[in-house]
């Protein structure tokens, strides 16, 4: 009797975590903060500041108006580089995925592109374009394009040929074929590309900002390093991370839920 009642309680306890997924996320964040706080207590703040002073500084940065300026500059570079890479990669990926000759022709470009480090491209771009917006945007584009293209080639090769044949039998013209048949099947690949594309873009853009620009999050991290303020290095990094989290949970997750609703249909 006793053991069975305790196992029922155990099941109940487990189901609380199941039923409230938000609780799991909150517990995860709380664990990170507590761990950080505990480890930081062993070190001087100049080496590892704790979460309390860092978030106080994050609040000050948000309030000062400086954040909007630098954040705006960085986000513009990230988005401009990502969007151009995204559009070029969709077109190139579909062509490479459907045409063997095109695939062979562009394959070396992809391999070379995947190999060159972002630091090298940042330096090259700054020497080509000087201190201008073009340098970081180009760097983001050139780093992301081969990665997203590889992803889109995979997506194109995984297209359901039977459904495409169906659409041909019903005489769907090219526009309908792309909009109603091909793109919906590429959605998981487009979403994955957006996720890793945006997060990689920001890692790339801070390098360019650190090397040669006079604003942006990367510049501010470099500046904080210059005044030897570890709290500021942490605060600027976390402030930007919060924005990326807002994009993920406020934009990408809801979008994903909307465009993949058909998968959750329950069979009769």
């Amino acid at each position: 009797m006793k053991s069975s009642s305790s196992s029922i309680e155990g099941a109940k306890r487990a189901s609380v975590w199941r039923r409230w997924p938000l609780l799991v996320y909150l517990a995860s964040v709380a664990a990170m903060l507590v761990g950080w706080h505990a480890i930081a207590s062993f070190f001087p703040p100049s080496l590892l500041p704790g979460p309390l002073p860092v978030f106080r500084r994050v609040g000050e940065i948000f309030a000062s108006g400086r954040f909007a300026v630098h954040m705006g500059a960085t986000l513009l570079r990230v988005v401009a580089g990502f969007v151009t890479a995204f559009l070029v990669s969709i077109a190139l990926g579909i062509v490479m995925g459907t045409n063997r000759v095109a695939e062979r022709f562009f394959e070396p470009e992809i391999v070379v592109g995947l190999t060159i480090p972002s630091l090298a491209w940042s330096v090259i771009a700054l020497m080509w374009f000087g201190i201008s917006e073009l340098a970081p945007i180009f760097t983001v584009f050139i780093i992301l394009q081969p990665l997203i293209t590889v992803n889109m080639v995979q997506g194109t090769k995984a297209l359901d040929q039977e459904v495409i044949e169906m659409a041909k039998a019903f005489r769907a013209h090219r526009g309908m074929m792309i909009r109603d048949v091909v793109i919906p099947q590429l959605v998981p690949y487009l979403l994955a590309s957006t996720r890793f594309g945006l997060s990689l873009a920001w890692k790339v853009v801070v390098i360019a900002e650190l090397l040669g620009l006079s604003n942006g999050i990367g510049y501010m991290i470099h500046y904080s390093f210059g005044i030897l303020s570890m709290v500021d290095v942490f605060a600027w990094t976390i402030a930007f991370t919060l924005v990326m989290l807002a994009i993920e949970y406020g934009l990408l997750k809801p979008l994903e839920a909307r465009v993949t609703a058909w998968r959750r249909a329950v069979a009769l």
Partner: protein
Amino acid sequence: MQISLRGIHKEFPRQAGGRLSVLRDVSLTVGAQEFCCVVGASGCGKSTILNIVAGLTAPDAGQVLVDGSGLDSSRLRVGYVFQKPRLLNWKTVRDNVAFALRAGGTPAAEARPQALRYLAMVGLEQFADEFPLALSGGMQQRVAIARALAIEPDLLLMDEPFSHLDEMTARSLRAELLRIWERARKPVMFVTHNALEAVYLADKVLVLSGRPATILKSVHVELPRHREMEDPRLLELQREILHTLGITASAVRH
């Protein structure tokens, strides 16, 4: 509209090199109001015949004639029902039917109400706003039939449409198909490996040989409609077809 194939040959390249001859000198005619079944063993090239008629595959030799004249068959309005439903799972049931209508040139504003009418015809109007994955296999295949009928095709092509369904569902869909077809009276090419299904449905059954396929025999089914699957005259015709295919009566019973 009458559809004829004249001397169709088709080969496919083999992965291992060389060529695989699939169709050899296939000639047939489907009359303007005829329900024609094509029976043959699995993999004998039955689907290839339908794809050639639909203009999805080009024959190596021979031609497709519409009302006796050569015509680019890729311009024929065909309602195609495949072995699997081949629905667009990301569109609702209604939008799946409307997709075929729009592909055929119907303006979007008319396509949606017309789609609903054809869904009602197969008894699915209350599922119009569901996604296909919420439906059973039999219901999905009914959506595919509604999609093929909705475009008011010149010709209905059906490629073993009931072979993936359980026999109960298949039987009710066969009866339903005949009920709808008797009103529309469009020419039908229905491919199957099930000889009994063929004689139950068809006015005319064409028996195909194994690869390379050629037509061995044409069997006319003179019985009036609303046939019974267990009708001894149908079973006799089934035996005749199976005999042509080289399957003996004793093998049929097991």
